[in-house]
Every structure is written in C-alpha cells, then in structure tokens.
C-alpha cells in the first residue's frame, strides 16, 4: 500500500466535495454573472441545518443530507431574490462587494445563533475499506458516490431537459433568452435553488468529513472552491468538475509530501499560476467566448 495511492484516494474524496461546491458556484456565475462570495455561507447553512436536524432524526444520515439540501435551496432562493437581483445591471465588482458584505452578515448571524465554538455530528465514519488500491472510510465512499451521482444528474438535467436547455440559453445571453420566450427570471431563480441545494448538501458532507466545524466552515472552503472553478473554467459546469478533480488531487498529494498545514498554500499558488497563464480555465478552448470580465 503506497502513500501515493492513499493520498490519491483521499484526494478523490476531497475532489468529490469540491466538485459539488464548485458546480454550484459555477451555476450561480453562469446565470447571474456574479462571483458569489457568499457562496461559502450556503455550505455553512446546509451544515448547520443538518446539525439542528440530527436532533429530530437520530443518526439518520439520509434525513440530515436532505435537510441540508433543503436549507441550501431556500437560502439560494433568498440570496438571489434579496441580493443578486437587487444589484442587476451594476458592475461586476459592485455585485462582488455586495456578496462580500452578505457573507459577513450571514457568517456572523450563524455565529450569533449557534455560537462561535465548533460543533460536530454524531454520525459514525464507518470502518476502513480497501477498494482496489485505495483505502477509504465508509463516509469517504458515500461522498465519492454521491458526488458522482450529482454530477450525473446535472449532466442529464443540462443536456436532456427543457429547464437545462433554458439554463444554458440564459447563461449565454439573458436578454436574448428572454426575447426568445424563455422566462429568464424563473430560470435564474430555479438555477439558484438548484445551486443552493447542491451547496447545502456539499456543506453537510464537508462538515461530516472534517468532523468538527464552526461558522467559518464555508468561508474557509470558498477559495478552494474558486480555485477549482477557475482551474476548470468559470461558468462551465463540466469544465468545473474537471477543475475540482485536479485541485482535489493536487492539494492532497502535495500536502502528503510536504505538510498538511501547507495544503491550502499549494492551492492558492496553483490559483495564482492559473490566473497568470490560463485565466479562462484549463478545460476551455483558447479563443472560446471570453468570460474575463
């Protein structure tokens, strides 16, 4: 059993959580053209909702996950209606600063409700399993399977449904979609609900994987999410999934060989390099529609 393969295995679990968070972030960007800095708080809300819910449904991981997704969905809808739509038509930086303000508000509201001290779930992580060359806990496996499942569902949704087609149209050009008879406002709302639900669920599995978490859970995961999104290609769901896989593996492997304290330093160094050389993303063709603001 090599250290390298173990870290690849853990990297895949990290990449799974990252993929969910980053896909939600990229969907928000696709329809609203906003780098949502309050995205991390959607994860935190999901994690804390599941924490409150576990008192009602003892030891039921499925129920906790559903509660997290539902809370994220509501928060996503509220964020779109209460913040993003209010700033429609303003410059990208203005909306971005507004989301920074919203992040500060939400993070501290959660702290006021739940306190600053870390909390944890009482779900068991399950035993260790050898799967092929990898060594995973039961919850690692659940994370990877659910990430794959969500990725598959998003693919089906975007490619095979009218709603998915409408999302793609709105993300290309909202006004043009509107005049073509697509109810753009509802599509944007639906996308935020979807992104919120994914983010809430991601928050729950992130909190469960880390073990203990506080009000800063989502915010500290935000830069990693952005790194993964930018690595793939912001506003492009499939490219984002690729970016999450890459970033998850890079930080886990680099962290194993240096020190886990420097994991995030590697991620940020990667982000700066990407910004310098491929700001449109690794998995986006050169010359494709520029998303540079």
């Amino acid at each position, binding site marked *: 059993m090599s250290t390298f393969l173990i870290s690849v295995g853990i990297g895949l679990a990290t990449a799974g959580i990252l993929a969910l968070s980053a896909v939600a972030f990229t969907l928000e960007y696709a329809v609203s053209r906003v*780098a949502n800095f309050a995205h991390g708080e959607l994860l935190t809300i999901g994690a804390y909702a599941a924490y409150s819910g576990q008192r009602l449904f003892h030891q039921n991981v499925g129920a906790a996950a559903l509660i997290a997704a539902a809370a994220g969905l509501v928060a996503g809808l509220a964020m779109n209606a209460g*913040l993003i739509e*209010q*700033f429609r038509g*303003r*410059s*990208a*930086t*203005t909306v*971005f*600063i*507004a989301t*920074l*303000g*919203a*992040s*500060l*508000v939400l*993070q*501290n*509201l959660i*702290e*006021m409700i739940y*306190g*600053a001290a870390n909390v944890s779930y009482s779900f068991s992580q399950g035993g260790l399993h050898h799967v092929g060359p990898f060594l995973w806990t039961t919850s690692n496996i659940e994370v990877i399977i659910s990430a794959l499942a969500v990725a598959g569902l998003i693919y089906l949704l975007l490619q095979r449904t009218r709603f998915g087609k409408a999302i793609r149209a709105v993300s290309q050009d909202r006004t043009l979609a509107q005049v073509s008879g697509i109810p753009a406002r509802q599509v944007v709302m639906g996308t935020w609900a979807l992104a919120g639900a994914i983010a809430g669920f991601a928050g729950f599995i992130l909190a469960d994987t880390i073990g203990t978490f506080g009000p800063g859970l989502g915010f500290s995961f935000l*830069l990693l999410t*952005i*790194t993964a999104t*930018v690595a793939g290609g912001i506003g492009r769901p499939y490219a984002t999934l690729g970016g999450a896989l890459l970033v998850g593996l890079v930080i886990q492997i680099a962290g194993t060989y240096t*020190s886990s*304290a*420097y994991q*995030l*330093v590697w*991620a*940020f*160094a990667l*982000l*700066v390099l990407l*910004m*310098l050389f491929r*700001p449109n993303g690794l998995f986006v063709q050169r010359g494709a529609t520029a998303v*540079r*603001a």
Partner: protein
Amino acid sequence: MYWVSVVTEAAIFAILALGLDMVWGWAGDFDLAFYGYLALGSYMTMVLTIGKPIPPVSYIIGWRLPYPLALLLAVAAVIALAAVIGAIALRNLREIYFAVTTLSAVSALYLFVENYTPLFDGYNGVYGLINPGQTALNLTYNGYRIVFLGVVLVLLALVYLTVQRLSASPFGRMLRSVREDEHAAAAYGRGVFSAKYRAYLFGAALAGLAGGLFAVFISAFNPSAWTPQELLVIYAAILVGGRGNPFGVVAGVFAVYIGFIEVTRFLPSPAARPEFGPALRQVLIGLLIILVLKFRPEGLFRERLSRDRSPQ
C-alpha cells in the same frame, strides 16, 4: 485616555484607507491583499526593534534599530512584497480576477506566517514593542500615548495633503481615465500597467506605514489581528465616506470607527455568549456595505472630477 486610543486607531486606519482608495477609488482595482501589507509592516517594525528572540519564541532578524529607521525599512519591505503581487495581479487581471488573485496571494501568505514559526513565531506572533522612545523623551505612559496620537495625526495630515495633491495632479487624472476606460486611455498613449502599478506601490507603502504605527499602538502582532474580514471594515468606511475623494475617505474612516464601532460597543453581549456583540457588529457592517452600495454608491462626499476648462 479611552478617546485618545480610539482616535489614534481611527487615524492609523485613515492612512491605510487613503492608500487603499488610490488603488480602488482611483485606479478601480478591488484589492483584497491590503491587510497583508499592514500586517507585514507591523511584523517588520516589530522584528527590527525588539531584539533577539528568546527561545522558544522564534522570529527572523531580531535587531534593535531605532523606531523611525525600522519604520522606513518596514515600508520598504512592504513595497517589495507589493511589487511582486502587483506585478502578477495587475498585468492583465481585472475586476473579480484581480480580487481573487490578491485574496489568494494574501491567504497563502497568512497560512505561511501562521504555520512557519521561524518567520514571525507562527500563531503566537511577535510582541514587546512597548512605547519606543518613552524613556528618551522622559514621558509618562499616558503622556506618551498623547504624544503618539500627535505624531499619528501629523503623519495623517502629511499623507492627506500628499494624496490630495496627487489626486488633482496629471497622475491622479490619468489613473481615473484608466479606471473609466482602459482601452481609451491606452489609445491616448497612457501606460495602463505602469500607472496602476505605481498607484499600487504607493498605496501599499501607506498600508505599510499604517502597519508600522499599528505595531506601536497594540505593541504585539499575531495572525488573529489580520483576518481577511478586517479589510471589509476599511472598504465599508471608504464606501460611506466617498470612494475616490480623499476628504470623504478620512471622514468615512472616522465616521465608521468612532460613530459606528464605538456605538455598537455597547450592544448587549450576554455573559454566557461573549461572541454575540462582536458578531452583531460584523452583521451591521455587512449590512452597511450592502445598503450603501445599493442606495448611495457614491458615498457621503462625491468624488471630485476635473472639469474641461478649455475655451468653448
């Protein structure tokens, strides 16, 4: 003495805000690395003045330079760091790409400082810069604090006058033209990168100066003193006062620090929940940012733009 300390803090942050406003207000770059420059200014001033570390404490350099000289060297170190980050981030990244790049640069720096103890003693930070020059000036503790406030206010006035002059100078106008339309400015022969870069280095130098003064003000510095959230208060102050207007920026800092933070200090904070009050204050600052952006994005004092004075 309470008010002396409040005004000193506000004046130090006004210097930082004037620097930040050159970058954001004039040149239009939303930077999130700025608190890192304040932090480096503080750390460098500390390690240049407090002497050799006593194990288990560890940090670099450990000289005993006179404070003004240490302050100058600290500012130089900050400019060097800003020269690297600015060269990477300003070359062709704009708006959110610039913001994200500067934020990841400062976050990497933060994690590195926190974990790599030989640099600035990691999480514990450095301390021991207590009233430099107090014995030489033969002052009491309180007297020193008042003199220090005077020094900070004089420096703020000097910085303000310099920035005010720059604001109305061809350089200030060029930066604003670059902000409004980079391509048009470039077409008229303005060096976009060099203009933004110079503004960035100047702004960072002011942040470093504020950091060096802050080191004396709190006499200790560790990673909990420079979380990314701290910078948002400065942005809120610039927004309230009036982005791009030096007078507005200073007024905004004093309004937000004194009017807002000091008033909210008296918010209820139950003994069992000591984090309640500070968290509520952060909520209010976040709301303030959103509401000002929504309803009065130009702030209390509008940016003064130069008018076309050529004969009609």
